[in-house]
Structure formats: C-alpha cells, structure tokens
C-alpha cells in the first residue's frame, strides 16, 4: 500500500514533502490465571502514519494522519487535503527532511522457537518454580514481531524487524499472617530460557522475603541501594534536560561543558544514548543513529534530539537512540554491600523530580543490611535530594542489559530519609 500512498502524495502539488512510517505488528499472547491458561490472542495489524509538509511564506507546516485499512483513491486524497488544510495555518521555522543515501533493511535475529513451543516451555518454568505457598497468581506472555519501514520524499527508505518477549507476572506468597504479592515486568530481546528461569527464581525469593518483611520504625537516615529498572530511571532522569527541545525552550539548568555533579563526586558519571541493536539503528525521522555521549565524567558533552529541533539549534541532528548506556562503576557487590543500608527490591514506583531536586518512593520490599544481618522490611518510604544522590552515587562493576538500558546493576546513594 505504501507505493499507492506515495503515488497519490506526488500527484498533489501543494505537498512539499512527505514521510510515511509503516508499522507491521504480529503478536502472540497468552494469559494465565493461577497457573491455568485463560485467554490466547493473536494480533496481526499494519498501520501507516503519513505526515505531509507544506512550505509557505518561508515557513513550514506539517500535519499527520493514520491509515489503518485500504482507502479508495478518493478517500486518500480527502485525507491528504484535510492534512494540507491544517498545515497551511502552521508557521514553524523551516527545516529540511532527512536525506537518504540508499535503501537499507536491518533485521534482528528472530527467536528460535515458535510461540506455541515457547509458551509451553515458559509455562513449565513458572509452574516448576511454584508450590502451594509460593506461586504466580497471573502470568501474561507477549511475543512481538515488529516491522517498521520509514520512507520520505528525500529518499529515506529504511526498514527493520525487531523481536521481543515480554512477561508480566505476579508472584505471590501465602505467609503465616497474610498473603503478599509483588509485580514484575520482564522484557527479553532474545530467547534465553536460563535467564527467564533465573528471573522466575528471583521473583519467588523476593516475594517470600516480602512475606517475612516487617515495618520497622526509626530507621532514620540510611544509605539506599537501587537495582535494575530503578537504576535505569535514576540515570534516565539525569539527561532529560539535554534534549534539543528542552534546550531550545531554555529549560536546561546546565549547558555543554557544565558539571551535573559537584566538583568531587564519589563517582564521575558517564551516560550515553545508543541503539539497542543493529535493527534499531535509525529513528522515526530516518536518521542513522550512533552512540551519543551526553554526560562524560560528570560533564555535559552533547545534546540529543530529533531532526527538526537539531536544525533549529543549528546542530547536526543526532536522532534519538532507544537505549541508555551508563559506564559501569568500580565497586564489586561485596564493597557496595558494606555497612548499614537498605537494599530496595521493589518500590511502588521510583519518584524522581529533577526540577524539585527530589528522589524517593514507597518501599514495598527492601532488605535492611546491618553489618551482615539482613532484615526484610516493608511499609516504609525513603526520600532525599536528587542532586546529593548524583554526587554520592557509588556504581557497581556488575552490569545488566535490559530493554532501554545497559549499565550498572546497582547504585548506592547516601543519607536518604527513611520513615
């Protein structure tokens, strides 16, 4: 269908430029309730996001629409004209679309097993880890195959295929006094049953710990260790201000060359943006992506962002890679896990407000480490200064690679208020 859309767009003179993103999604899904299969789903859809550009009075206007099923030529022309109408009243500063060099198709490696085989094996891993008191009340398995195709009127013609497996699970534990549960969402970019098994075992261990957890009063000021997705959020927030859009709007407190940490931080932090795989090496504008060092040794090195805002800032647009890369720390787990601290296993959701200089969250499960003694705790919360956390952060040597993040598994931040 993409050819017929292009043909029609070319016939309308007022369309100065165009871009089309074709998204094909094939997904298999299975939903388990208390270990039994409740629902299966298949998704087989293709959609087109068409953006038309109209240059007028040395300005540019653009407007987009979605096509979800085949349209007659008359219907398509009507959609284009509706978009054209709106674009004529938009007076954005002119910029050029990304120019393509040659057609390129990059595909990640598909999963070895069919979904039916995969889901039986995954079900068996979850079942084997379960017993009368420790089990999974719900498991949802999503296998996704996504094909994206970006074309524009300046010869961009890029396509990719990416695969992913997502598993949402609710581990639960029937404790002596009450039943407890935790929430888990694991995303896999390759099929690794050993990793799934490891995560399942970890989920059961964590929820068992929650059943033993007690609310302890008077913990007071305490160091905090965050892990996995919370570590990812910690670093993700540190570079928010440096998108082209924020910079253009004047919302960035620091500029290139500034330190985001104090002069003598515990660890000088380096954060980059990078494509998560070969297939993800172009963005929605058609920019071919490479690693962007946003923060290096605590200093702002580069801004990042889309084609349009890059040009507005007079910078060669970087595009927006889909993954964060953080340089690993120099502490092994034993060194990090020294002294008195709270190892946070599960938060309701980490709260980071960089503009209010705040970090905190309600702790659903943490382990209080006091010189070797471990006590599971729950029903408490922590809070503190995000800037102080950036300065006091100690990073682990141990790294993880999860969707959207590769970097230290653990981060230790000092002197948080716990109540």
């Amino acid at each position, binding site marked *: 269908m993409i050819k017929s859309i292009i043909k029609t767009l070319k016939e309308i003179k007022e369309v100065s430029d165009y871009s089309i993103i074709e998204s094909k999604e094939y997904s298999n899904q299975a939903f388990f309730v208390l270990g039994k299969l409740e629902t299966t789903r298949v998704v087989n859809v293709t959609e087109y996001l068409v953006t038309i550009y109209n240059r007028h009075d040395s300005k540019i206007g653009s407007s987009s629409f979605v096509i979800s099923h085949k349209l007659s030529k008359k219907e398509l022309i009507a959609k284009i004209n509706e978009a054209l109408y*709106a674009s004529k009243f938009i007076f954005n500063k002119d910029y050029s679309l990304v120019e393509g060099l040659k057609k390129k198709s990059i595909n990640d490696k598909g999963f070895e097993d069919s979904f039916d085989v995969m889901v039986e094996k995954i079900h068996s891993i979850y079942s084997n880890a379960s017993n009368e008191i420790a089990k999974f009340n719900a498991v949802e398995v999503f296998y996704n195959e996504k094909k994206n195709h970006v074309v524009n009127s300046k010869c961009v013609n890029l396509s990719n295929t990416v695969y992913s497996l997502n598993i949402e699970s609710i581990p639960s534990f029937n404790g002596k006094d009450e039943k407890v549960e935790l929430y888990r969402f694991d995303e896999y970019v390759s099929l690794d049953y050993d990793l799934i098994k490891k995560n399942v075992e970890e989920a059961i261990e964590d929820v068992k710990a929650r059943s033993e957890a007690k609310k302890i009063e008077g913990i007071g000021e305490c160091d905090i260790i965050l892990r996995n997705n919370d570590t990812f959020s910690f670093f993700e927030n540190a570079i928010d201000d440096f998108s082209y859009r924020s910079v253009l709007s004047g*919302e960035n407190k620091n500029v290139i060359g500034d330190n985001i940490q104090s002069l003598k931080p515990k660890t000088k932090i380096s954060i980059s943006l990078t494509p998560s795989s070969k297939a993800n090496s172009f963005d929605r504008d058609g920019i071919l992506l490479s690693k962007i060092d946003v923060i290096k040794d605590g200093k702002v090195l580069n801004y990042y962002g889309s084609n349009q805002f890059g040009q507005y800032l007079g910078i060669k647009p970087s595009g927006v890679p889909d993954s964060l890369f953080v340089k690993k720390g120099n502490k092994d787990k034993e060194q990090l896990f020294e002294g008195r601290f709270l190892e946070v296993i599960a938060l309701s959701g980490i709260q980071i407000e960089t503009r209010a200089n705040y970090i905190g969250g309600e702790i659903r499960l943490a382990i209080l480490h006091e010189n070797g003694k471990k006590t599971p705790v729950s029903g408490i919360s922590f809070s503190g200064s995000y800037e102080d956390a950036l300065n006091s952060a100690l990073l682990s040597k141990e790294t993880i690679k999860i969707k959207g993040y590769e970097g230290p598994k653990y981060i230790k931040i000092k002197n948080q208020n716990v109540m």
Partner: protein
Amino acid sequence: MMYSNKVSKFLLKRKPLVRKLIDVLSNEFEYVSCLVTDVKGTRIVVDKTVTNVTPTSLTESGFVVRVLGKNVYTEYSINDINDKNFNFVLEEIKKEALKKRNIEPVKTIKFDEEEITKTFIRNNKGQDFKEDEIIDILTKKVNEYVKDEIINVYSFIECNEYQKMFISKKKELIQYYTWTNSAAFAISRVESSIKEAYSGNGYPSLEEAINDLDEVFKYSTKVAKDLQKAKPPTPGIYTIITNPSITGLIAHEAFGHGVEMDMYVKDRAKSKDYIGKSVASPLITMHDGAKATLSSASYFFDDDGVLAQDTVIIDKGILKRGISDALSALELGTSPTGNGRRESYKRKSYTRMTNTFFSKGKSTLEDMIKSVDFGYYICDTNNGMEDPKNWGIQCTASYGLEIKDGKFTGNIISPVVMSGYVIDLLESISMVSNKEKVIGSGSCGKGYKEWVRVSDGGASIKARVKIG
C-alpha cells in the same frame, strides 16, 4: 471541523460482514463476538517554538474477534475484515482457537447475554471549530502568557470521536460520542531554578473547552511561578485537605484498583475479604461507572458489549462490591458492571475503572481549612501506584499549601509524595466538603501497561497521611 457528529460509515459498511462472520463462526464455537473500533482523534499542540497537528494516541480503526475455543477464550485483532480477507480471517481464528495445547485451561463457560440492539449517540455540544481557528486561539494564549519568568507553555486541544460497534449472536450495539481535552504545561525559570506546572481538563463540548482555556493557562502559569518559592516537605505524618484532583487520585489508586474484580479471579485483591465490612470513614461513599457522571470515561457500553452502569463501591464507609469486566464476572459467577476496557482493539479487555469519585459531604471547604492546626492543602495529581493485594499506596501531588491555625501561611511544599496503608488513610477521613468536581483528563495503566482514559475526583477530604 473537528467533529462529524455522525456514526462512521466504515462501521456501518462493515456491519453485514461482521454479522456473517459471527454466524459462520457460531457453527463451531459456543460464543463469538466482534468489537469494531473507529476512533478519530486530532491533537493540536502549540508552544512558543512549534505548532503540530497529529492524530491522538487514541486514534485507531480495527476489529477484535473473540471466540470460546477449547475452554479458553481466543481473540484475533486485525485492521480490516472485508470480502477479500474474510476467509483468511475465518481460518486464522479457527486455527488459533482449536489448537491442541499441553497446558491446563481455566474451565470457562460461555457468556450469557441478553438480547439487545441499540445505537447510542452523544454529539459534541455547542459550536464546532476548525483546526486553523484552534491553532489561532492557542497561539494567542501562548503569546499572552509566555513572559517574564514563564519561559514556555506547552498547550494542546485534543478532540476524540469514539465510534464502536459490538456484535454477537444476541447483541448489536453501536455508539458515537465525543470528548475534548485541553491542557497547558507551564515552565517558569528564575536564574537556574526551573519549575513546571500542569493544568488540564476534559469537556463534552469543544466550545466549553475553548471558553475555559484562559483559566487553564492562568492556573498553570500561576502555579509554575509560585513553585519557585516551594520547599521540599519535612517527612512526617500530617493533617491534609485535598483538592478534587488529589481526592480522585486517592479514590483511584488507594481503593479503585483494589476492587477491580479481575484481581479477585487472580486472588490478587485484599478487598475480596472485606465485602460488607468497614473500610473507610462513614463519611465516605465511592462511585465508579461510565454512567456515574458525565466525564471522559462516559461511554454507553464497554468493550465487552456490557451496558454502562453506576456502581456504588463504598457506601458510608462499608465496602459494597467491586467492578468487573464480562470474563471476570463469568468466572466469579457475578454480574458484569460495564468495566471491561481495552487499551485498543490490539489489546485484551481487563476490568478497568471509568469515572471514579468520592461523593460530596456536608462541610464547607472554608470550615475544613479553619479546622486545621497545622497541615497542608494538597493540590494536583502527578502520579500514583496501586497495591491491590497489600493495600500500600503511593500518591504524588504537585504541591501543598501550608495551613497554620486555620489559615494559609503562603508557604508551599513540592513535590508531595504521600504513602501509607490504604485503610489507615481512608479511616482517618474526618471531613468531606459539600462540593465535588470530577476531572476528565487522566489516563490510567494496569501495572505498567494497558493505558485507558479515566476521570476521577470528588469532594475535598480532610485526612491524616504520611508525606515524604
């Protein structure tokens, strides 16, 4: 124009074919239904640097067919069902639904539906506008309010036309309704201090949204300026009074998620053991339902084809019942409450909240403030997270105004993260205001996915809560 005020031709054109599909599949399957969606949305965004016109995130057009196969329900989502792909779709559904699997299924039975054929229409009220008129209005507002320490205002108007058709052996339902959202997200800067504030609302009428825009801009820019003098709170337990936005957040996060009855099926909800018991102060009555008020989640039937209802969840402090989608109700042997909602036709239906709120009480807001020796008036939802099994809560508000000896001191705290145990919070409620407001501009996820539009709110409440 932004609204057509007409049922989509696409839906009507596909109706005979969908009916045929249901008839053919009914020869092999005990239960068959098809939801067809054709949601059209336009979002016009204006700030000081750019203007954009894009489809809204709700824009979609597609089909989801549901059949009861070998003890499990099977669903197939596709963009289109037409004469050309009819047989292909038929075979794909059969292939998936009749698969032999070495996994024990939940023993589900077929939906027991009542016969009903009806079309529901709720048009946009008042004057309609064209894109260029909205761009012009927003641009003037941005130019008016971006000055001095206000360095930018991201503003938008979003118009959605919801059009859905649900067909099964016994049902044929069509609905068309509109909803408009507006918002302004203001950024203030004083030297290196940058603060942000959001104001948004939802309306059954575009004209009303346009008329209210000045208030939306005025509020967000004022708060963005005020936040420049905000300080972080000292962690502790405080007396609070909530504005309707925070009341809604508490109703939604603290209790609403915990009474979603698909959680009962999964043995995930503590509230299951509390039906008929006291869970809140006797001053609290809590509703949820697409029919409970007119707001962003006021549809006529849900994505399972169940008609909208008004469910009283808590009545004077006593937990009465939960809310449910059709499948959960079937598994629990209860009646569905019209709360089966999908993020899109590509996703599964779950029990979801709609319009959730605490009803008004008898106190005036002035008397409530006067009654506080020391505490905060907490304003504007930021986010929240549920814990249905263990009733932990986390609700984040944008800011709080300090109250001392019954008067505002002018001091402001931000951000405000409230946490604790649901029942402690709800039982601590000692006053409820005599005015209520439901705010139709929110979105809600289940866990970290499945986003749907919801509204929440209610009256102001006075309670004790942990901040920090």
